């Protein structure tokens, strides 16, 4: 409660304490080693549990001196050990203490100390290192700068339960990236740590377990190795299953469930394995229950969301286990904002203010968890509803669910917004929900707001959701159009992120589907032909496909090609000549067919012999889809009721299309056969 101290008082206290602290530091410089030792011991007793004293000693420069004494080989072992203990005690203080210690290069000094042969000294160094490394302010990279450190720590694992506990705790906290995982893995982390899972010490078992959870996370190599590890003749996965038993401490159950989840997601355990279906999943659902602590509920929900994300069967099981869907609704019953009263003007010595401030402190804690809880619940809902229509229905029918998503979309915490939009995206895959609840709750409004100025990860999700909302059967399509979304989508297509480009063009494509000419013109104008052609040569196939789709939709109803006809034809030629997949070419031929349907546009093809040869080629292609699309194109060109059909028919007959059509009437594919016959009838009529 230091925040309650009045400023002048604080200074006076500090000066008073400094005097005594100075004395402690002075004694470290005593010429008599015995006095120094006694000084360090006294200092140790003085700093225990006294954060102010710790801060003072650091300010007065005790740390470099202690480190010097610790490193001196002339110092007695006892003195060096006591120094390490005092440093460990200092590290237990505030984050600022840790920063100061790290700035004084405590880490290399302590790591150096580990080379000593005395166990007590090693343990003291490790204890201090542990405290420093588990602090969020310490850069974990410091553990990996010297390549000899990790193998040495591995070798110290056999010394005692204390070394095991501290080292595994350091590993568990400092393994943050795939590179870290690889370094630890290559130095035999698995073989060295696995036996610790059956250590008699609970702390060692727990830290070892945590190590495996961070090692296995999204790491196929580690996960694959883990499944084959035996601990005392038992498979590791079975050891984890035992650790998930309901009478084990919650922390252990949860961490073991994480290990199995990560191994499963990394492909080392099948999703239909009993240890996942009957053990891990129910364990994680239990972690979401009201009886658990807020932190546990958050972790449980996030892990469960991750576990079942790719598997519909797990989603179905989870959706009926322990009423998970309604259990998650409880995650929203925590305060979402602090009352404005905490912002009242502060008056000196105001007791009322102190109380408010105190309340705010505890509320802040709840508030932080409230955000975490909400985002975890959204994530889990997103995962639950990603495939099964019934589950989506169940979710949207949960009390106030849509309202919660809507308000989640505009929450201050970016994590919550992202999770809410993920949830919305997952639910937007349901035709029924798009037609009903999405429209009823006008979700498009906050979604549109979210799209302005959001970070990329939110944008990807939000724009993807928007794509679904713009589907032609979605009642939200109209209001979204009216809100001027086209500009926004066009700007997305210029993004550096392929995902955003796809979503932008995809949304435009959906928008253009069976749209009014007015909308189509708007799209073309907003996008600009230049950008359109840029997208047609996009390195990302998805972008190309959706752009072609957009073109196809734009050209679907008797297009007027007067403005961009030439360029479009050029683009089409380019794609048909290029190295593209069947799908891309099919889409292109469909565009061509649409062009062939327009009055003026027909001429663009008919006058382009090169293009006609290409169509001819595709009619004889081995792929039925391409044959069909090309036949469509021809069929549109020779359609009777239109002006100049006779000339076109004649020209095409000369080019040998009739023979091909005749051949296609014998095709084995019924669609193709049918299409060819219809085209032939145009000649006969």
């Amino acid at each position: 409660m230091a925040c309650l101290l009045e400023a002048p008082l604080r200074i006076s206290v500090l000066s008073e304490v400094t005097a005594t602290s100075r004395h402690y530091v002075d004694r470290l410089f005593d010429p008599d080693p015995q006095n120094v030792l006694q000084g360090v011991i006294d200092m140790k007793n003085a700093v225990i549990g006294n954060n102010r004293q710790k801060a003072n000693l650091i300010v007065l420069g005790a740390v470099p001196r202690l480190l010097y004494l610790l490193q001196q080989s002339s110092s007695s072992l006892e003195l060096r050990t006591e120094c390490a203990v005092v440093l460990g005690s200092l590290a237990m203080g505030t984050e600022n203490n840790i920063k100061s210690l790290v700035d004084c290069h405590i880490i290399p000094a302590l790591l150096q100390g580990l080379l000593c042969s005395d166990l007590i000294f090693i343990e003291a160094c490790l204890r201090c290192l542990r405290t420093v490394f588990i602090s969020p302010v310490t850069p974990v990279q410091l553990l990996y700068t010297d390549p000899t450190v990790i193998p040495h720590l591995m070798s110290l694992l056999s010394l005692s339960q204390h070394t095991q506990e501290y080292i595994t705790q350091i590993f568990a906290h400092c393994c943050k990236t795939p590179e870290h995982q690889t370094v630890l893995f290559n130095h035999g982390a698995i073989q060295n740590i696995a036996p610790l899972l059956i250590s008699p010490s609970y702390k060692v078992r727990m830290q070892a377990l945590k190590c495996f959870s961070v090692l296995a996370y999204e790491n196929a190599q580690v996960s694959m190795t883990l499944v084959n590890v035996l601990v005392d003749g038992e498979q590791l996965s079975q050891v984890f299953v035992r650790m998930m038993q309901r009478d084990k401490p919650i922390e252990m159950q949860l961490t073991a469930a994480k290990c199995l989840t990560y191994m499963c997601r990394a492909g080392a355990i099948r999703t239909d394995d009993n240890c996942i279906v009957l053990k891990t999943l129910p364990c994680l659902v239990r972690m979401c229950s009201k009886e658990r602590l807020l932190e546990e509920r958050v972790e449980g929900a996030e892990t469960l969301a991750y576990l079942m994300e790719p598997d519909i069967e797990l989603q179905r099981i989870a959706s009926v286990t322990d009423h998970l869907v309604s259990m998650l609704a409880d995650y929203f019953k925590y305060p979402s904002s602090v009352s404005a009263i905490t912002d009242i003007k502060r008056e000196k010595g105001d007791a009322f203010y102190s109380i408010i401030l105190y309340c705010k402190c505890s509320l802040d804690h709840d508030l932080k968890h409230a955000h975490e809880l909400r985002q975890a619940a959204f994530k889990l809902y997103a995962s639950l509803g990603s495939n099964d229509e019934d589950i989506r229905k169940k979710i949207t029918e949960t009390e106030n669910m849509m309202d919660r998503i809507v308000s989640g979309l505009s929450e201050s915490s970016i994590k919550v917004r992202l999770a809410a939009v993920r949830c919305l995206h997952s639910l937007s895959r349901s035709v029924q929900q798009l037609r009903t609840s999405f429209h009823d709750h006008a979700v498009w409004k906050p979604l549109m707001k979210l799209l302005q100025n959001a970070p990329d990860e939110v944008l990807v999700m939000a724009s993807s959701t928007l794509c679904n909302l713009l589907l032609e059967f979605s009642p939200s399509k109209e209001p979204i159009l009216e809100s001027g979304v086209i500009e926004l989508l066009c700007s997305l297509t210029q993004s550096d992120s392929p995902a955003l480009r796809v979503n932008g063009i995809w949304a435009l494509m959906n928008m253009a589907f069976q749209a009014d000419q007015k909308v189509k013109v708007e799209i073309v104008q907003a996008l600009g032909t230049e950008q359109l052609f840029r997208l047609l040569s996009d390195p990302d196939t998805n972008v190309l496909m959706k752009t072609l789709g957009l073109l196809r939709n734009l050209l679907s109803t008797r297009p007027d090609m007067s403005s961009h006809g030439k360029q479009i034809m050029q683009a089409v030629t380019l794609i048909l000549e290029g190295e593209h997949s069947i799908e891309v070419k099919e889409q292109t031929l469909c565009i061509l067919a649409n062009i062939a349907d327009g009055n003026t546009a027909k001429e663009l093809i008919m006058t382009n012999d090169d293009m006609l040869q290409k169509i001819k080629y595709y009619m004889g292609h081995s792929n039925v889809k391409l044959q069909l699309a090309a036949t469509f194109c021809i069929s549109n060109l020779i359609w009777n009721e239109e002006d100049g059909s006779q000339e076109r028919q004649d020209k095409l007959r000369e080019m040998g299309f009739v023979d091909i059509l005749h051949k296609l009437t014998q095709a084995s594919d019924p669609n193709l056969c049918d299409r060819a016959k219809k085209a032939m009838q145009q000649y006969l009529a």
Partner: protein
Amino acid sequence: MQCNICSVLSKMAELGAGSLLTGDPAFNYQEHELNERLKRLYPAVNEEETPLPRSWSPKDKYSYIGLSQNNLRVHYKGHGKNHKDAASVRATHPIPAACGIYYFEVKIVSKGRDGYMGIGLSAQGVNMNRLPGWDKHSYGYHGDDGHSFCSSGTGQPYGPTFTTGDVIGCCVNLINNTCFYTKNGHTLSFCPCLSFQPNLYPTVGLQTPGEIVDANFGQQPFVFDIEDYMSEWRAKIHSMIARFPIGERLGDWQAVLQNMVSSYLVHHGYCATAMTFARATETMIQEDQTSIKNRQRIQKLVLAGRVGEAIDATQQLYPGLLEHDPNLLFMLKCRQFVEMVNGTDSEVRCFSARSPKSQDSYPGSPNLSPRHGATNAHLHNTGADSPTCSNGVTPTNKNKSHNKYTGVSSASSSPSSSPSSVNYSESNSTDSTKSQPHSATSNQETSDSEMEIEAEHYSNGVTESSTRIMNGTYKHQEILQADDNSVDDSCSSRQLCGGNQAATERMIQFGRELQALSEQLCRQYGKNATHKKMLQDAFSLLAYSDPWNCPVGQQLDPMQREAICSALNSAILESQNLPKQPPLMLALGQATECVQLMAKVRSGSCSFARVDNFLH
């Protein structure tokens, strides 16, 4: 009715496929597994009072229900036109409260026409022409809509629907009075029913033709890991007990506990241990040391099978005690007779005994550790209740030459293979006067650490013991004198009264005296069935050529000495105005009784608060 039976039989024939015969080994195996599993799941249930459900009841069912496969398979045989054709069956017994947590599973073999299966619970007397859950005191989870019915015709949305191939479980938690169902091993959250009445029966209901379900009351492993669920509650209740608040009274509790330990030690005569404990904890011992030692001496005599000497010692040290308690005296005499048959009582042993040789008089020392009733006899018996250890009566070692070496080192289980024990026995026979070190060795081998302390005490006993003992008929030295030979003899041959003719005559004479005593008691106090039975049992030993291997041979087991030993000890204590039971045992007994009482008043937590769980 006849028609019904016919159809049942035909159904049984078609569904049962021959596995119905009770003599079927597969069935017996299943029965065995069932018993094992039920014992493991519900250890607190006393099946003699409250049997567990093991099958559906052929009596407690609607006529549209057919049973087969040992009354585990249920099929529907009504018309199934509408809900009026619903039919249920209950299990043979209600769920005992002592289960704490009860679980059974039902596999849907076929959903039949419409799949209107209901799984659940109901009380005795609830209409069987209904699905479980529709009526008062009835609860059910229904397959067609996945709803839960709690004593009401309208269900509440609860879980998924279920159909052919699904396994539905029903778990009743009698600790917090909740219930939940499972589907294919997954829990479906607590069912919304708020109150459960006691004595519910597992129940299934069917409603349309073709519906068939199989029950699993523990015949097979459950799909749901019920033991894991139970372990959570066991941990919960154990931590509740461990964290029971004692508030301010911490000091009182410690004093009470110390008193309990101390009085227990005193009661059983662990004099030295008791003194050490009292010194360490700074507590007082009520009884004086001499008295403790006297009692201990008498106890040791009884446990060594030397009942005659024990009677004499009692009469000497506590004059009037046995005279005022003819029942006890009679019991002792009966035991003495048995010991004569056994060849251990001094009245017969003196015939075969030569000179006393060793102090090592209690080869059968397993008996020295007290027993706490039958419940945990096993805990103490390990290693002690094998015949090898009891006075060297070794049924497996009939070989004389072998026994010569093994008789004394009773506690070593395989004497022939243990060189140390062989050496020891040899040295004992050649140099038997050097008894002191041997006695120590022997005591180490008896694996009873308390003995070690006591034995040391005895070795000093002569010098430090009070005059009263010195004046007594039996000095320590004498009491501790046992001769290996006699033990050897008795065990090697295992003959009546050690095979000695004179001894046998003495025994017969003693039997006559006993008979006379019985008659006298009968005249004095009226008939006593217990006495008569005791006498008969004792005498009938003589009717067999090998009393040790006869239907009443159990009496010869040294273990049998314990009951009479503790009765005598209690009587002595009572005569000294001391509690005849140590408070520790009283507390233990009370706790056990309380737990049993909890089961009777339907407090489910009793099943996880068992006293044995706390005795290690």
